[in-house]
């Protein structure tokens, strides 16, 4: 029931591997499983059906290649199909060269419009643009205040006119933006149902009067079969220019992404991956396809590491490692860097194969806190030379960190093993990547 699409496909391919070549029969069997997996991942029924039909045609055509393992062949076909369904390349948000550029955000209630608007504002503020956020949701209680609070957090101006007409709000905001030499205006509209004609007309009217360069639909990654209806209707009535997927940091397999792409033809441009204002990523079709197929997402992991890990610190650490001077202090620093990268679970998902490996072995973030407490309960001397930690010191450290002597023993033993392991890694060069996180 909770098996991921990845595991399903892996199981399917395993059974395929036993056979000598791709036959009509074993392809059918594999496709049945793939179809089921797609449906479990909330890919729309009809989209899944088309997908399967296309894969089948290609797989049977590819039968003649004898040297390739049939399982791998199917993996390749399915993977490529997934990529082409998701969109063959990365597509970024379009910003006009003639300011102010306007981005209009729309979507159902609770899809994550306000959060996305603010994340987007921060993204362009960091690129040196002058951004204006516009609170165009006069309906939901405290919606304006929510945007104002977020605006304050990221230090971006918020335009609001209370409960005024949204069309008017947007027009006034735009004229203010022109006067103040704003580069980018982001219109955060109210959430609405796609079947609410009155409110959909309102969006059409806003669009007509402000002529946005981008009209982005925000869709929840957890959406089920209805994704095609919602995206289809929004596109039909408003001609959206792109899609943003929110809440991709959960365990939803994001089948909705496939459905929406297929039904609107619009590129998926951005992905929300967390609650922090910086948790916004470009959508990379090949990465998501790989992730679905269990090939991991190592590119995202490396990028994340590059973003958060201090290069100088990493270089220092590497030098120390080469000289085998890795101390508990360094270990502590490493934990801090790792923590900056976000929750461990989301990191694990990105490591190829780790998803399968870690299945069942729950990662306890508390164990990391415990290790931190232990290290912080040591004297600088002990952190530098763990070998001086004798029985009575262990007792003291256990008391100070609220752990037991056994915990301390275990931690020190693991630290020793890790040091040994890191030593072997350094031969290949270790650029900041925290490979030595084995104790968790």
């Amino acid at each position, binding site marked *: 029931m909770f098996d991921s699409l990845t595991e399903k496909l892996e199981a399917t391919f395993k059974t395929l591997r036993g056979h000598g070549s791709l036959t009509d029969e074993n392809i059918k069997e594999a496709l049945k499983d793939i179809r089921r997996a797609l449906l479990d991942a909330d890919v729309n029924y009809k989209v899944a059906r088309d997908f399967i039909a296309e894969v089948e045609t290609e797989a049977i055509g590819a039968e003649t290649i004898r040297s390739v393992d049939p399982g791998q062949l199917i993996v390749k076909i399915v993977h490529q199909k997934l990529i082409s369904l998701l969109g063959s390349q990365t597509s970024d948000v379009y910003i006009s060269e003639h300011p102010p550029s306007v981005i209009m955000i729309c979507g159902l209630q609770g899809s994550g419009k306000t959060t996305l608007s603010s994340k987007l504002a921060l993204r362009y503020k960091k690129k040196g643009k002058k951004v204006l956020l516009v609170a165009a949701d006069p309906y939901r209680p405290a919606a304006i205040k929510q945007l104002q609070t977020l605006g304050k957090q990221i230090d971006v101006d918020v335009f609001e006119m209370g409960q005024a007409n949204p069309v008017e709000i947007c027009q006034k905001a735009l004229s203010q933006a022109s006067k103040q030499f704003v580069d980018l205006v982001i219109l955060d509209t109210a959430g609405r149902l796609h079947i609410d004609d009155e409110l959909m007309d309102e969006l059409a009217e806003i669009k007509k009067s402000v002529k946005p360069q981008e009209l982005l639909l925000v869709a929840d990654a957890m959406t*089920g079969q209805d994704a095609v*209806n919602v995206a289809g209707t929004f596109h039909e009535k408003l001609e959206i220019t792109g899609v943003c997927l929110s809440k991709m940091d959960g365990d939803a397999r994001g089948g909705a992404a496939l459905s929406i792409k297929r039904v609107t033809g619009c590129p998926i441009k951005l992905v929300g991956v967390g609650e922090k204002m910086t948790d916004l990523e470009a959508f990379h079709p090949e990465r998501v396809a790989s992730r679905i197929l269990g090939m991991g997402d190592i590119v995202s992991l490396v990028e994340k590491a590059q973003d958060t890990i201090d290069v100088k610190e990493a270089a220092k650490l590497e030098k120390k490692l080469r000289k085998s001077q890795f101390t508990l202090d360094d270990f502590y620093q490493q934990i801090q860097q790792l923590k900056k990268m976000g929750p461990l679970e989301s990191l694990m998902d990105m490591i190829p194969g780790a998803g399968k490996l870690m299945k069942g072995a729950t990662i306890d973030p508390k164990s990391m806190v415990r290790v931190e407490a232990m290290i912080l309960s040591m004297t600088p001397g002990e952190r530098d030379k763990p070998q001086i930690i004798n029985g009575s010191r262990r007792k003291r450290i256990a008391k100070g960190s609220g752990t037991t002597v056994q915990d301390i023993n275990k931690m020190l033993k693991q630290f020793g093993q890790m040091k040994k392991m890191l030593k072997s890694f350094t031969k290949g060069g270790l650029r900041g990547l925290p490979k030595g996180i084995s104790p968790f």
Partner: protein
Amino acid sequence: MLRITPRRLVDQVKFFSKFKKGLTKTKETLVGNIKKAVGLAAKVDDDLLDKIEQILIESDVGVSASLKIIENLKKKVASDNIKDPEEVTTALKAEIMAIVRSDRNPATLSSDGLTVWVVMGVNGTGKTTSVGKLAKFFSDQKKETMIAACDTFRAAAVDQLEVWAERSGVQFIRAKDGTDPAAVAFDAATSAKARGVDILIIDTAGRLHTKTHLMAELAKINKVVAKVVPEKNIKSKLILDGTTGQNGLSQVKFFSEAVGGIDGLIVTKLDGTAKGGVVIAIAEEMSVPIDFIGLGEQIDDLKPFDPESYVAALFE
């Protein structure tokens, strides 16, 4: 216990028509499609059952629950010797009815003092709005009601709930943004008990069920409230977005694990085209009952889930 008053009767009728209106779209597709499928089919065969499977899956019921329903339907068709495709609809209706039916009254409060509902769910499902509507529901029932804003994370969530408190005229406990939600919950429970409140509804911050530390925070809220109120009077209610697909099962599983069992579901946003069929899968696979459903944006648009009306409205 249920006295039939003219007022109640009018309410019932209004409620039923609202229910039907909200579900019209659902019905149009689900029943419309089945009728179409049934109408096209001259006899009950595998093609017909395949079509029914498609319809169920497209309603977010999910593959495994759909297969089970179809399996039971097949048995019924065989044992009752059903030859008329029309009768298949009746049998299907009974099948779904048996899954979502629950005998308890979702609005029942404990007889010995304060009941606490801790309202939880992933981001954007409609927790705060539902808490506001629940407050109105209970205060209409002449229950002394208090709501507490423990979403100290999302910007302006507290202010949003305060507006709802004013609308429904119930007692309100507010927290400063960024304070410890468990501390607020404890204060709220203590003061609700002291003031002789019947029901305290706690609004918590939205959280993805896969974030271990946030789930631990939720467990802490429950633990802290249990210091003031007997554990049996604390009910965990999960808000599920009606547009959610199979991830709904995962949500129920993780939230349930975090707080030691979900007492009931509140399903929102069923006034769109989403069928909310995942609740059928949830009821079937995990036996979590549906307590309330949200059918619109008005303060009165949250209704106790009535399986009879639900299935009747679906299959009328």
